[in-house]
């Protein structure tokens, strides 16, 4: 027995040496390949945008930037975007805090319900709220008609309301996380010393949560200014950067100006991304490690509970109404006008073709996204090569960059050799793969954090070479991260609008684009019916992610983007 073992261990022929040589370097070979892909499909389009914004017919020029800041139509678009981001950020900080405070410290009976309400918008693409707000408050809107109001939803109020509803889950999850991680004994001590509940919230809870609240606020800001659908549908005459970029290309074909708008839109995102990942990282007063201790907080006094409840219930009613009218709109002729049951919206062939196209595209990008994400995570975690951090940063940046900007970048970068992709479905798939790969990478990294490097060393110790370790040990263990990455990418691709709207060709509709276009045309029934189908698919995906999270402890459902 022993001889057999020894013979094969010491049989070191040429092939074995070759394998050992490549085995050692395989991770670097992978790294090189992945780096090339990231460079082509993320760096190159962004660089193309940057260059185009400075490159006129006579070479380098700053005339487009000068133009941007000379016409109020342009710079108001920037100011409006910043005002929008700031207002939504402030409003959601308050609403998110009310929800999170109640779900962590409020009455037990209300916690679960409020949590579900706050997370409900995750089940739909952000622009669903534009459609439901039009259905409710539009010219023929349900509520406008019911109460004979003359409320104009195509306004600042409409855009802000829609964005607040859309990004409520993001704000809530981050703030809840912060409030959960505060050591309850600090609040107890303050109460013990005789501080009132107002006092405790003001001088203990909020200061301790401040770094986390700041992070939540910044993320909400970025997501809001990058969102395309709601301002595009509800913005009316008010210019915003994301929709203007789109119009600049579809309406005027002005790629230089579209690039300038993109660069201006991307700047705050990049600043916040860096702040978020490198400056604020690890900051905070997280005083509990692991699960929060089972502490029962004192009952909230009415002076706090009642205003918090009023805010959350009002928001909750809006969330339910929004989903309700979408569901209603899918099955009646025109909500608020003619409530006869119709099945036409659901059966519309064009809509169903669009859904089917979306499913195909999403399956493909889910699969590639999961593969690329898993490999990237492995290479970033286990590889030893210069530029690793840069690689990680590029891989994660896709998430932070506004979809419109990447969309503009893709049409400019891939409409000529050597990467002629315009008009094919591959440009859409690759766009989604690399925009959403960040989540797959993060899932993979967090899974790899759970796997001790000793597992890999143990397999090497037992005689396995690199390939064997990768296929027999790493891949099976990372499978849950792979599946989670797949589902997540599938789901976000389904809902994605801002980027793909630049890339679809006439005659090839995607569900998200179809919803946007029908909503623009006022075909709310069709838009609602398609949204309902999309919600059904997203809910299914979320359920699968939840099961994965339960079974393997790998939770990536706490991410949002579309």
């Amino acid at each position, binding site marked *: 027995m022993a001889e057999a073992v*020894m013979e094969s*261990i010491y049989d070191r022929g040429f092939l074995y040496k070759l394998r050992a040589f490549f085995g050692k370097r395989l991770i670097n070979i992978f790294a090189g390949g992945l780096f090339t892909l990231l460079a082509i499909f993320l760096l190159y389009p962004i660089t193309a945008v940057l260059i185009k914004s400075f490159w006129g017919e006579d070479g380098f020029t700053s005339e487009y930037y000068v133009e941007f800041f000379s016409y109020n139509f342009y710079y108001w678009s920037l100011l409006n975007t910043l005002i929008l981001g700031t207002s939504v950020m402030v409003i959601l900080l308050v609403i998110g805090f009310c929800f999170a405070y109640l779900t962590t410290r409020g009455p037990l009976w209300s916690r679960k319900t409020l949590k579900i309400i706050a997370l409900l918008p995750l089940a739909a693409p952000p622009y669903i709220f534009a459609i439901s707000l039009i259905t409710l408050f539009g010219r023929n809107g349900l509520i406008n008609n019911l109460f004979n109001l003359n409320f104009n939803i195509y306004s600042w109020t409409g855009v802000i309301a829609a964005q607040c509803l859309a990004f409520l889950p993001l704000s809530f999850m981050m703030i809840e996380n912060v409030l959960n991680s505060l050591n309850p004994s600090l609040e107890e001590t303050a109460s013990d010393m005789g501080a009132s509940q107002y006092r405790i919230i003001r001088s203990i809870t909020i200061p301790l949560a401040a770094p986390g609240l700041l992070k939540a606020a910044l993320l909400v800001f970025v997501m809001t200014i990058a969102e395309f659908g709601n301002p595009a549908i509800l913005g009316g005459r008010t210019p915003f950067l994301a929709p203007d970029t789109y119009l600049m290309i579809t309406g005027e074909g002005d790629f230089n100006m579209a690039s300038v708008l993109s660069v201006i839109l991307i700047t705050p995102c990049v600043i916040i991304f860096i702040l978020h990942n490198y400056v604020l990282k690890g900051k905070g007063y997280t005083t509990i490690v692991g699960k929060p201790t089972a502490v029962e907080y004192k009952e909230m006094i009415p002076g706090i509970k009642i205003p918090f409840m009023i805010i959350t219930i009002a928001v909750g009613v809006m969330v339910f109404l929004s989903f309700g009218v979408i569901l209603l709109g899918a099955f009646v002729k025109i909500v608020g006008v003619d409530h006869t049951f119709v099945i036409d919206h659901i059966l519309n062939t064009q809509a169903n073709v669009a859904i089917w196209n979306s499913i195909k595209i999403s399956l493909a990008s889910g699969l590639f996204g999961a593969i690329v994400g898993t490999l990237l995570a492995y290479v970033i975690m286990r590889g030893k090569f210069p530029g690793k951090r840069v690689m990680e940063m590029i891989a994660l940046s896709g998430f932070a960059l506004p979809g419109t900007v990447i969309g503009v970048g893709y049409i400019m970068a891939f409409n000529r050799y050597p990467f002629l992709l315009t008009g094919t479905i591959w440009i859409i798939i690759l766009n989604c793969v690399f925009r959403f790969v960040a989540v797959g990478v993060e899932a993979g990294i967090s899974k790899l954090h759970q796997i001790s490097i000793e597992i890999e060393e143990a397999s090497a*110790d*037992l005689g396995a070479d690199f390939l064997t370790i990768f296929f027999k040990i790493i891949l099976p263990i990372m499978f849950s991260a792979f599946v989670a990455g797949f589902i997540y990418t599938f789901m976000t691709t389904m809902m994605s609008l801002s980027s793909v709207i630049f890339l679809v060709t006439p005659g090839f509709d995607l569900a998200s684009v179809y919803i946007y276009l029908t909503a623009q045309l006022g075909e709310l029934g069709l838009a609602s019916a398609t949204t309902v189908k999309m919600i059904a698919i997203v809910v299914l995906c979320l359920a699968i992610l939840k099961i994965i999270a339960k079974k393997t402890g790998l939770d990536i459902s706490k991410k949002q983007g579309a």
Partner: protein
Amino acid sequence: METQETPMLELRDIYKNFGDVEVLKGISARIKKGELLTFVGPSGCGKTTLLRIVAGFATPTSGKVILDGEDIGSLPPNMRDTKMVFQSYALFPHMNVRKNIGFGLKLQKWPKDKIDTRVEKLLSLVHMEGLGERAIDRISGGQQQRVALARALALEPKVLLLDEPLSNLDANLRVVMREEIRNIQERIGVTTIFVTHDQYEAMSISDRLLVLHDGVIQQIGSPMGIYEKPANEFIAGFVGYVNFLQGIIDTLDEESHTLVVSTEYGKLELNYEQKDIKMGDEVLLVIRPETLTLSPSHGTEQQNTFHGTVESHMYAGNLAKYTINVEDREMVVDQYNPKDSEHFKKNDKIKVIIPRSVHMLKIGEASEQ
């Protein structure tokens, strides 16, 4: 050193730097066939790095690793005939017990029925019969430890490497597993290197200890040798409590094997056991607490006694621990079997009797071997 036979493993002048930090500074050692040698030392002493160099996970900056007569320095871990049990056990979470143990055999392309018989044998060796189909997260920590051991033994390694294998177990289980590992190791006679930072664990499991500190071997020797004849102050303090006492050799009589040391508390007449001690040498006496005896101060005057008062005492069942104040200096005395000995209270005046056989360290001399 002691024997002429070729060692199973030889480390020759191993240096290892991490950047500017020298972690190992010239380690040389020979490990005999069938021996259990423990690398022990405080954390950061380089013991794990040394083990990883043997396994092939770390490359020495210079020096050689010779396994059974062959220089294996250039081989990757998967081509070395050393197998390791990891601190975290590193069991494959997606395989059951049987598959974990058989993993290496499968890589060696053993036929399935042979793997099965071998795994069965190993399961019974580690007392886990019938648990082969269990998932890894469905067995206890101690059982995981056994699986890791069986998995490493499956390929019949020339040297078995154990990296702090007991550190994840609770105190009671640690003692059980320690005995079990020693038992199995002796039964199959596999040459073994054991790494731990726990000096008691090291003493109780090993044939020999290699004590590392600051990247240098402080001493290699049997547990008894290390405890009773420590090579330097570090070793003496590392393996148990010690009362140090400084002195100068006053007289030295080879005939009667007697020497006299004068200390700040008076002269002590001791056995002359260490031939390298000369007249006039400054020495440090290594006095273990359990070698000291206490007696009431009023009794008959004896040789080698210091007078003092009881400063504090602590009863721990199998022993009573006294702290005695001798001229403003503390001495610790362990009184074993306190049930049958005389008890003393705080502030009692007492005598501390120093035994005639005391190990001495020469002061001002390089302590390395």
